[in-house]
């Protein structure tokens, strides 16, 4: 303050140089030392964090009520709804542990970003419907005081799923289910298709379903940042680290029918810091596994699946990372602005990207040609051999396209039935899952987050009943198979 006063008084005289500094700085670095001492004194005052021994600001807190493993859109969504649905503000302490804050390998930001209601399970349709409503009103949900509103760049262009002769009956049935849940989908014959989208080659297409409302694509990075910003304003703690260990305790109990079970409870989560051996044990009451493609590893750390196969203890979480490529190409003669996200019966799909005649798309590989998920290298031969011919066959204008770039991302692929896993594990009773959505996790994230938060706070699903997605189905063998997977 004295400096400021002096500067004001001597303003015209000094040539704009701050008091106390001189050319070249000082080897003794007085300014740095003074500010360090000031910071230390300030930290001793009541209300500030004070650690007399060493600086622990990079470590997560020693205890937290809920620890969410994974800071992708699903984890942040669960945190958001937890803070939103808690009865009193500030009741629950939430910690989000994310290994990589650049999100370099996270599925959220590498995703194509589409949202559709055209699923075969009614629960999936309901989830996407709520998520679409969330995204439409995102600036009411995720508003932060004094911050600019979010621009999700939502393109409501819809999805166009094409079906061949064999798939036509299934498509009709699915559309009926979707309409029952409230999705607006229209069925088109090949002639109507040709009239509406003249650039499509309708050979081999028997039926098409076109989403009229709440379908399209958006910017997942913007959703992620919006959620992060809102969560920080709501008091959720973020920490960069990797979960390496769970300290848990087991107790032997008997079910009502007399059989013995061992129930496990996680007491502590060990979060290891990057590039160091330092770790912090975080005491917690609940752990949420939202680790995406690596949920299987986290589940194994908690002891899910360690047991004789064929029992509930031995049932692993069947979520594994599957690499999927996305290619970006330029085609001036292409479909243009009205093009929806077109999904061919052969598995190839594409959508418009931006306003410069760019498109992005890909094709899901078959089981035999699954790429190695060890790294995120792109295989351009896959495009040449598998994707381009199918695209060119469906849209003749794509014969003259030029690939600009490509990237690869992981699906948190549920090998059992390609649908998400939500809810608590029956045996590790304080681990909740929110993972395994196999490519449609981003679009269902807001609704899934709400469902998991309801499960944690109330004990049952309140708005959307996701009981077909509980963990128990892996043991009982009840598949909730999703047929419309891109």
């Amino acid at each position: 303050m004295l400096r400021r006063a002096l500067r004001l008084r001597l303003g015209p005289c000094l040539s704009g140089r701050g008091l106390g500094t001189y050319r070249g700085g000082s080897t003794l670095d007085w300014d740095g030392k003074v500010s360090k001492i000031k910071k230390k004194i300030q930290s001793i005052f009541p209300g500030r964090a004070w650690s007399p021994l060493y600086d622990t600001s990079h470590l997560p807190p020693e205890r937290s009520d809920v620890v969410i493993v994974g800071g992708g859109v699903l984890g942040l969504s669960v945190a958001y709804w937890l803070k939103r649905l808690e009865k009193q503000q500030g009741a629950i302490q939430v910690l989000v542990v994310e290994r990589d804050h650049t999100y370099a390998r996270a599925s959220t930001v590498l995703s194509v970003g589409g949202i559709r209601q055209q699923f075969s399970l009614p629960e999936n349709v309901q989830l996407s419907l709520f998520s679409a409503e969330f995204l439409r009103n995102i600036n009411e949900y995720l508003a932060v005081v004094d911050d600019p509103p979010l621009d999700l760049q939502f393109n409501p262009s819809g999805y166009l799923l094409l079906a061949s002769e064999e798939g036509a009956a299934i498509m009709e049935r699915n559309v009926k289910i979707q309409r029952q849940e409230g999705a607006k989908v229209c069925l088109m014959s090949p002639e109507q298709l040709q009239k509406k989208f003249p650039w499509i080659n309708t050979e081999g297409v028997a039926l098409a379903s076109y989403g009229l409302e709440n379908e399209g694509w958006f910017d997942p990075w913007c959703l992620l940042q919006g959620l992060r910003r809102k969560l920080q304003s709501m008091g959720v703690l973020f920490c960069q680290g990797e979960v390496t260990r769970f300290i848990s305790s087991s107790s032997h109990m008997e079910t009502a029918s007399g059989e013995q079970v061992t129930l496990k409870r996680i007491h502590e989560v060990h979060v290891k810091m990057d590039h160091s051996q330092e770790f912090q044990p975080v005491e917690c009451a609940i752990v949420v596994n939202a680790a995406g493609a690596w949920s299987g590893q986290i589940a194994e750390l908690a002891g899910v699946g360690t047991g004789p196969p064929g029992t509930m203890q031995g049932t692993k979480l069947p979520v594994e990372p599957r690499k999927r490529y996305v290619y970006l190409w330029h085609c001036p003669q292409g479909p243009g602005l009205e093009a929806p996200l077109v999904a061919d019966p052969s598995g190839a799909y594409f959508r418009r990207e931006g306003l410069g005649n760019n498109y992005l798309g890909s094709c899901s590989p078959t089981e035999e040609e699954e790429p190695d998920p060890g790294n995120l290298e792109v295989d351009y031969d896959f495009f040449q051999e598998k994707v381009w011919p199918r695209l060119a066959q469906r849209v003749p204008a794509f014969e003259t396209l030029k690939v600009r770039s490509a990237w690869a991302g992981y699906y948190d692929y549920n090998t059992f039935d390609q649908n998400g896993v939500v809810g608590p594990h029956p045996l590790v009773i304080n681990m909740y899952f929110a993972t395994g959505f196999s490519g449609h996790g981003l679009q269902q994230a807001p609704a899934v987050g709400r469902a998991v938060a309801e499960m944690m706070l109330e004990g049952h699903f309140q708005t959307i009943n996701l009981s077909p997605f509980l963990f128990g189905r892996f043991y009982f063998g009840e598949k909730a198979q999703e047929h419309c997977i891109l």
Partner: protein
Amino acid sequence: MLKYIIPTMMLMPLTWLSKNNMIWINSTLHSLLISFTSLLLMNQFGDNSLNFSLTFFSDSLSTPLLILTMWLLPLMLMASQHHLLKESPTRKKLFISMLVLLQLFLIMTFTATELIFFYIMFEATLVPTLIIITRWGNQTERLNAGLYFLFYTLTGSLPLLVALIHIQNTVGSLNFLILQYWAQPVPNSWSNVFLWLACMMAFMVKMPLYGLHLWLPKAHVEAPIAGSMVLAAILLKLGGYGMMRITLLLNPITDYMAYPFIMLSLWGMIMTSSICLRQTDLKSLIAYSSVSHMALVIVAILIQTPWSYMGATALMIAHGLTSSMLFCLANSNYERIHSRTMILARGLQTLLPLMAAWWLLASLTNLALPPTINLIGELFVVMSTFSWSNITIILMGLNMVITALYSLYMLITTQRGKHTHHINNILPSFTRENALMSLHMLPLLLLSLNPKIILGPLY
């Protein structure tokens, strides 16, 4: 008095020389035996006090507090067993020695004749408490909590030292037994106003008075269970006890000096009760309820009528047992779920019915259900403040309603409703925990059969 001090002091070599698997058994058993001998103190003479020597005495005000102190040590040791499981034997012995040292200082504080001796022991109790809070507390905020606790109490009590030495110089003696009869009226003057403030502020901070209560939620929440128990049950009563002793010397200026503090306490008790309704952290709720109950005690002591003194003493004992029991219950929850948030552990009645019975009893005594001694204390205080000023009955009535509200809110949130999935496998109640709760409840219920022993010297 040596018959209590020396055995308590010898508890320390007992723990250090015990075998590792006998530490808890030895210390708990022997401290329980010592607490039974404390009942001998009840043998009071008529209107006078039981004088052991020139240094120690006990009268019917300090006797119940002493018995409570000595009763609490085995309870604290029982409650701490679980969270110290993982520590090394040396650390465990260190913890027990801290508790025993604290016990020693507390016994000497409550029986001190000489007021400087009382002051020294009063300050000495801060040191083991600080060590317990900062070393064995659960979170990083405990350092902050210890700081608040230490400096609030020190700043409040430094003027007390000056005032005591001044009184020694003017009156000639600080021996309490003599002072009772030698106390001269303190006329109104600025220096006497400061004398009054200097004497009382230490105890106001300790009670705590509403405006100076900031240290209490922090210290209670961050302390380990034994720390919370001793803080809530005894250390707060040190303030009440000291106030009761020192007001003997401060007439007649207490008549008008006490007004701002009575107002502050009356307002504060409603404020802190209302805050309890908004708390999400269980321990924090119990800490604020302590402030609310102690505000009643402050009002009672400051209006200085026989009924109010009886109510204050009864309320101190009753609150000591009830608060300590509530902290033990909250701790039994915390040890199972590792979270203090109330809404994460709901519906416990279906899983732990016996513990639910203890929760019910503790909540009922907390809201001053007849015929417990909690009610006797509160009723005496309400009646005496009503006769002091009729309007206070509105505030007191409002406070009793809000106390009932938050006690039942705490009970219903933790015990009733559907239990959440993640508490399916909590361990059933240990015998140790049930014994702990029953040892809290039994004196409380038995005292309602014969409350005159806790009604203090004015009965």
